[in-house]
């Protein structure tokens, strides 16, 4: 299960939906808005997503995690809109019989989400300047540098 969330969400009902007597391990990842990014003080952060394609791509990633690691279940929720420091931007939960697969699948899912989902974030810094953060693409590091206006 993947979804975009326009508002803060609770993780307990999400975890409850994964309950399974066969589960021996639950690994949860929470990605949180930090107060600094690359040396700058972050005040707010805005996520914008191309949701139709993002939904399909995220479901592909979860399916891949199932197939590769033999887990019991997995879900991911990604926030869109404006977030403050300390708010959760992304949540990933994985259940499996043993912990090894759950760790591997959890890491796989968040790594792929960050690389493949059409989501962009705009950070607003102390002083009011802002910047689209976009160094996670398949393009070369130098291309990434070039795409960063303020660096």
């Amino acid at each position: 299960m993947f979804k975009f969330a326009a508002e803060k969400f609770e993780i307990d009902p999400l975890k409850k939906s994964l309950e399974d007597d066969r589960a021996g391990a639950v690994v949860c990842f929470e990605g949180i808005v930090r107060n600094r990014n690359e040396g700058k003080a972050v005040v707010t952060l805005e996520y914008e997503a191309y949701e139709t394609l993002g939904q399909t791509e995220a479901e592909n990633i979860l399916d891949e995690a199932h197939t590769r690691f033999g887990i019991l279940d997995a879900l991911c929720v990604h926030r869109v809109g404006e977030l403050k420091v300390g708010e959760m931007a992304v949540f990933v939960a994985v259940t499996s019989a043993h912990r090894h697969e759950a760790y591997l699948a959890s890491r796989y899912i968040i790594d792929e989400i960050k690389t493949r989902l059409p989501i962009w974030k705009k950070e607003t810094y102390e002083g009011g300047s802002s910047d689209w953060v976009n160094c996670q693409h398949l393009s070369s590091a130098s291309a990434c540098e070039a795409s960063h206006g303020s660096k």
Partner: protein
Amino acid sequence: MEIAENRDAEKVNVTVTVRYFAILKDQRGLTSEKVSTEAATLSALYNDLAAAHGFSLKQNQLRVALNDKFVDWQEPLAEGAQVVFIPPVAGG
């Protein structure tokens, strides 16, 4: 296929919807627009739009989606298609 049917001379004119996200949205000042184009491929369409609007991203920094699917830049354009140029992503 449709391109072949609609061909009237050498160039075919189709109207597609282009949606913009993130830095492209800021640079275009729009979230979406209808574009009437003679570009035969997505690659050609991006080059035309980048030249017209001064987009800072090079094509090799982008991916492209046609009708909500990732596709190759050489994919041809069809009347009514939805095109999204995808800047470097930064989820999570």
